[in-house]
């Protein structure tokens, strides 16, 4: 049994496997299928200062080895989260991390401040990369100035571990990563979904209500892996890798490329037990390769 513990800034994870925001609900949705305490961290559904209805149906289109979604950050707002959801999840024995989104730096900062007050939430993941909302989301994540402005505002009101989730829909993701690192982010996670489209040829209409959506699943994995590798070389803070991870081999690829931890997203829909299987698979691989700790493989790509 290898030591699976990793660190993201000051945050210690019992193992490097987390769930990606928007794919695991708040955790209890999957409690019948997996022992939640065996997961390194659960990143819950994107939360905003004010409630959001999200986009109209249809919000999802299946694609080859992946899917598009345009959910659009449907959530009941941070106050509802604090009053009603937090009490239900605070005793789950793993790192419960809240994904935070907003439409202005002030919104992000206020939302983060409310979550800062919750004892059992040790970290937030700042979503500056949602491709499915007009007012904000990815708008901040595609320029260094926009990304920096959000992180700067949040860093003033949020004092625990701050992970910033980056958009792949940019020319050079390493520039954005460096910009948020300079503003005090403790970690970057990448990639959010790639903007895409699907068309119903009989109706001659887009398959999604807002025409475009974010692509996820194994179809994006090579792109995600390349970006994680580039960013890990460009920044000094820990990188959390995600994008199409479906099994332990995928997770190990990301860690060799430089990820200190990984998130599993769309694969939860295919196998609700995938998180624990990946964790166990990483352990087996480490044992087989004589590694005492998972930290021995982070960034150890020979390239």
């Amino acid at each position, binding site marked *: 049994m290898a030591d699976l513990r990793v660190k993201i800034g000051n945050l210690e994870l019992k193992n490097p496997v987390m769930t990606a925001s*928007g*794919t*695991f*609900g708040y955790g209890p*949705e*999957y409690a*019948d*299928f997996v022992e939640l305490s065996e997961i390194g961290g659960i990143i819950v*559904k994107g939360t905003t200062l004010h409630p959001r*209805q*999200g986009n*109209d*149906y*249809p*919000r*999802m*289109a*299946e*694609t*080859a*080895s*992946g*899917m598009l*979604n345009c*959910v659009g950050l*449907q959530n009941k707002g941070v106050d509802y989260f604090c009053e009603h959801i937090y009490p239900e999840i605070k005793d789950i024995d793993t790192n419960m991390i809240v994904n935070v989104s907003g439409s202005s730096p002030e919104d992000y900062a206020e939302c983060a401040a409310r979550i800062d007050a919750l004892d059992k939430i040790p970290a937030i993941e700042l979503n500056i990369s949602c491709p499915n909302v007009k007012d904000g989301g990815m708008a901040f994540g595609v320029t260094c100035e926009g990304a920096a402005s959000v992180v700067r505002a949040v860093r003033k009101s949020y004092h625990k571990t701050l992970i910033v989730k980056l958009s792949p829909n940019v020319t050079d993701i390493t520039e954005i990563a460096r910009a948020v690192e300079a503003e005090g982010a403790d970690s970057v996670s990448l990639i959010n979904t790639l903007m895409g489209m699907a068309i119903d040829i009989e109706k001659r209409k887009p398959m999604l209500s807002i025409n475009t959506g974010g692509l996820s*699943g194994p179809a994006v994995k090579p792109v995600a892996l390349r970006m994680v590798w580039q960013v890990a070389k460009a920044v000094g803070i820990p990188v959390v890798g995600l994008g199409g991870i479906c099994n332990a081999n995928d997770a190990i690829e990301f860690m060799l490329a430089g990820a200190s931890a990984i998130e599993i997203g*769309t694969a*939860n*829909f*295919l*196998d*609700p*037990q995938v998180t624990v299987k990946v964790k166990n698979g990483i352990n087996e691989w480490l044992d087989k390769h004589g590694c005492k700790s998972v930290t021995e493989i982070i960034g150890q790509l020979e390239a």
Partner: protein
Amino acid sequence: MKKYVLDLIVSSVDHINDKYVLIKLTHAEKLPEMAPGQFVEIRIDGSATTFLRRPISINFVDYQANELWLLVAAIGDGTRALAQLKAGDKLNCMFPLGNTFTIPENKDAKVLLVGGGVGVAPLLYFGKVLKDNGMTPVFLLGARSAKDLLLLDEYRKYGEVCITTEDGSEGEKGFVTNHSVLQRVRFDQISTCGPKPMMVAVAKYAHSEGICCEASLENKMACGVGACLCCVEGTKSGNLCVCKDGPVFNVNDLSWQI
């Protein structure tokens, strides 16, 4: 109700005709408790184009034979793959998912179950459960033509079966809302599943008659457990997940124009 992910074993595959297939699944251990209206998310292996699980409603549960029945219309890549299954094959299933049809508290309640096309599927198990609870439901089943009417002998075990076909090849010609049983019997509850235009027509009829009506929806979904919020339906209390808050909704709670 506890949810499971299990490899079930195909015990038989009955090709009813070129479009519909009845798949019976079993398990080495006793099948878990399932309620009428709930569904199964099925993994389709070995195809990049059927990436996501396929939600299929529970057609029937035979606890004595330890069998779960799925009535499938082979219309897309995923359902066509299901139609290729053979006895002995394994099928990875997440179930039972979603909420359930309403069983009236009053044993004298007259319940009408209106199904269209393959939407008739969940009404069989519901009819059986109603009968177990001392009620005799009426099934009103609509189809394009006689060949799209499925498992009628099964439905007849649990209640009267009324039929409409669009081409008049069996039962009364027309749509379900034209059937004479609606003039003949005063129903206390209508539960419906099928194409949306049919369910909206049924909901309008029920609304105009002041009859309680619930509909089972089939929005495109991914997770099946209320995690991804892809399959939402607009309701009077906002967007709700068909997979978790449904699939069965009281039509008065939906944003439908009825």
